[in-house]
């Protein structure tokens, strides 16, 4: 079964996932060259979630994200040149260098500044949703957050508000620690710091539609998002989906521990010796390779098609790197501008 309705949709989705992947690799390389001010977070290992959800959205929908926003921005259609320039603090970035990685935004795509405070973005998303509903617009708000946000009180207040008033919100909880940190003897816990075993049980108790989705399964993500959107727009209320992925081993202090991604590893087992201890990533847990394998297996694409897609994505990122590197830093005086709207 193909993940998205048409061949074009599927290839476009993989292209976006590759774009995100190579963008994040470029970020890591830039950071190791000392070009990224501050601490940053990469979306490697979660690409199918962002792309799957965004594929189900309209231009008029709002997208809210957190410190881990690069993949969401690109999946939504943000310009990699402006996005990377912003991460490097350049004048040509989406916010003239004022936001950086933590507060990534693309206002023209209804993607306001991301909140770097864990949990902070959930209440805000209930507000954009309320406005859309109040204005009788057929649109929804999507809010992405990690399982860590469920440790903050703000999340519970937001879920309650959304459930009480049937706000058109899609809560996307990206649990990228699903299998990683289990306390020995306490089987079944899906997040290290939560006493809740199943997050979706919590959502259901609060009268929200809820589902657990495999973050490798692009089609499942897309279907869940599509159903949630329809539910929200028809007035039936909010949905909470928990999308589970394995943590990419290089994410903590980002380092290319699995090297740059090459699409041929979707069919070619020649993983370099130095990555052998991380073979699980290549063989199972990389959503980019996983989706590529699905497209091959369903006959939607040939190996040559996929190589071409990968090359296209890499080229676009190379151009973004060049643009960001060559862009100037903002003028010092611009530090004082844009405090107020006018």
């Amino acid at each position, binding site marked *: 079964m193909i993940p998205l309705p048409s061949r074009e949709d599927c290839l476009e989705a993989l292209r976006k996932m590759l774009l995100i992947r190579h963008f994040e690799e470029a970020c890591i390389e830039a950071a190791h060259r000392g070009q990224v001010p501050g601490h940053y977070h990469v979306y490697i290992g979660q690409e199918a979630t962002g792309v799957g959800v965004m594929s189900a959205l309209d231009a008029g929908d*709002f997208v*809210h994200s957190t410190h881990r926003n690069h993949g969401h921005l690109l999946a939504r259609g943000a310009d990699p040149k402006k996005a990377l320039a912003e991460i490097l603090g350049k004048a040509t*970035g*989406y*916010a*003239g260098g*004022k*936001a950086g990685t933590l*507060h990534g*935004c693309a*206002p*023209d795509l209804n993607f*306001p*500044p991301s*909140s770097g*405070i864990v949990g*902070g973005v*959930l*209440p*805000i*998303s*209930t*507000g*954009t*949703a*309320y*406005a*859309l509903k*109040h*204005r009788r617009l057929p649109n929804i*708000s999507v809010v992405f957050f990690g399982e860590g946000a469920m440790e903050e*009180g*703000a999340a519970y*207040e*937001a879920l*309650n*508000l959304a459930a*009480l*008033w049937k706000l058109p919100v899609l809560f996307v909880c990206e649990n990228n620690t699903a299998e990683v940190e289990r306390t020995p003897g306490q089987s079944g816990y899906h997040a290290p710091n939560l006493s809740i075993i199943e997050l979706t049980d919590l959502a259901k108790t609060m009268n929200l539609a809820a589902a657990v989705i495999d973050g490798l399964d692009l089609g499942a993500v897309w279907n869940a998002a599509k159903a949630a959107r329809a539910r929200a727009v028809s007035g039936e209320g909010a949905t909470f989906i928990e999308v589970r992925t394995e943590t990419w081993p290089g994410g903590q202090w980002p380092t290319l521990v699995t090297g740059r991604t090459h699409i041929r590893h979707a069919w070619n087992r020649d993983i370099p010796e130095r990555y052998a201890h991380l073979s699980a990533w290549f063989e199972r847990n990389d959503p980019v390779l996983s989706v590529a394998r699905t497209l091959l297996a369903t006959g939607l694409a040939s190996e040559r098609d996929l190589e071409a897609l990968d090359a296209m994505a890499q080229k676009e990122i190379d151009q973004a790197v060049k643009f960001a590197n060559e862009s100037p830093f903002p003028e010092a005086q611009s530090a004082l*501008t*844009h*405090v*107020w*709207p*006018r």
Partner: protein
Amino acid sequence: MAEITFGEAKIKAVADLMREDERVVIIGGAGFGGLLHAKYVAPLHDEFEPRILRTPIAELGFCGMGIGAAMAGLYPIVTIGTGSFAFEAWPQIVNEAPNITYMSGGQVKVPIMFHALVGIRISGAAQHSARPQAMLMQAAGLQVIAPALASDVKGLLAAAKDSERPTFWIDHPLLFEEKQPANGGKPLPLGKAAVVRKGSDATLVGYSIDLVRCLAAAAQLETEGIDAEVIDLRTLTPLDEETICESVGKTGRLVVADECYPAASVASEVASIFTDRGFGLLKRPARRLNFPAVPVPLSPPLEQHLLPRVDKIVATVRELVG
């Protein structure tokens, strides 16, 4: 001259805003009246019920919700209720709302009006008597208004709304029943204090309920032959230094009445003008009347002992002039 209570004027001002602009909504159940004056808010519910959201006790949640609603085409007035409850929503008020326009390079607006009844409400005790206004002045990107007069409230609200800046309206429960002249309504400039009583012997600066106390003190001082000029700050951010300097340049004496605790208070900020821009204008030391750094006690004689009362203001001016 027709008179109206401040409370009725502010409710009328909100109703006018809602009538003029259908994007205005109230999140928080229209808590403009607090505990004592809830019935005065009934006309708002009668006329605008579909635009008034009665929220659960979830200030962090519904203040964040207000921010989102402001970003998506509505003008939300978020009524937090008692000023102390702003602390429940603090991350959203000071760490989200004021940063968003800047973090978007000026592209995303957050036209929101937070409202709270802050201050010593009398017998509120330690946790229901907070004055967060000085703390809010430390949130760059947050505008703070404090209308004290019935004739100003519509003008300040309209100006704040037109500015589209995230704004915190510092209201006070004791203002509600103040009977004041009913004229006014024209838009007022933000960041402009008002000389509400002209005088030559001393400058009294106040805002909100302390403006009312300064006016009462000035009336008392007049009977003693002391002519006090009274300035209403009207907005805390932006603060109008020029009007205060001009007045002190004339009188040479400054007294600031402020319910905030002393450290880094509104009064501190006003007084500090004369260490720099207004240096040399003072003939006597600047006096600040704050609520001492003591958790607010319940027992009435204890609370009264600590308030920046009218008689304390009078005594302070008398001492400076004498």
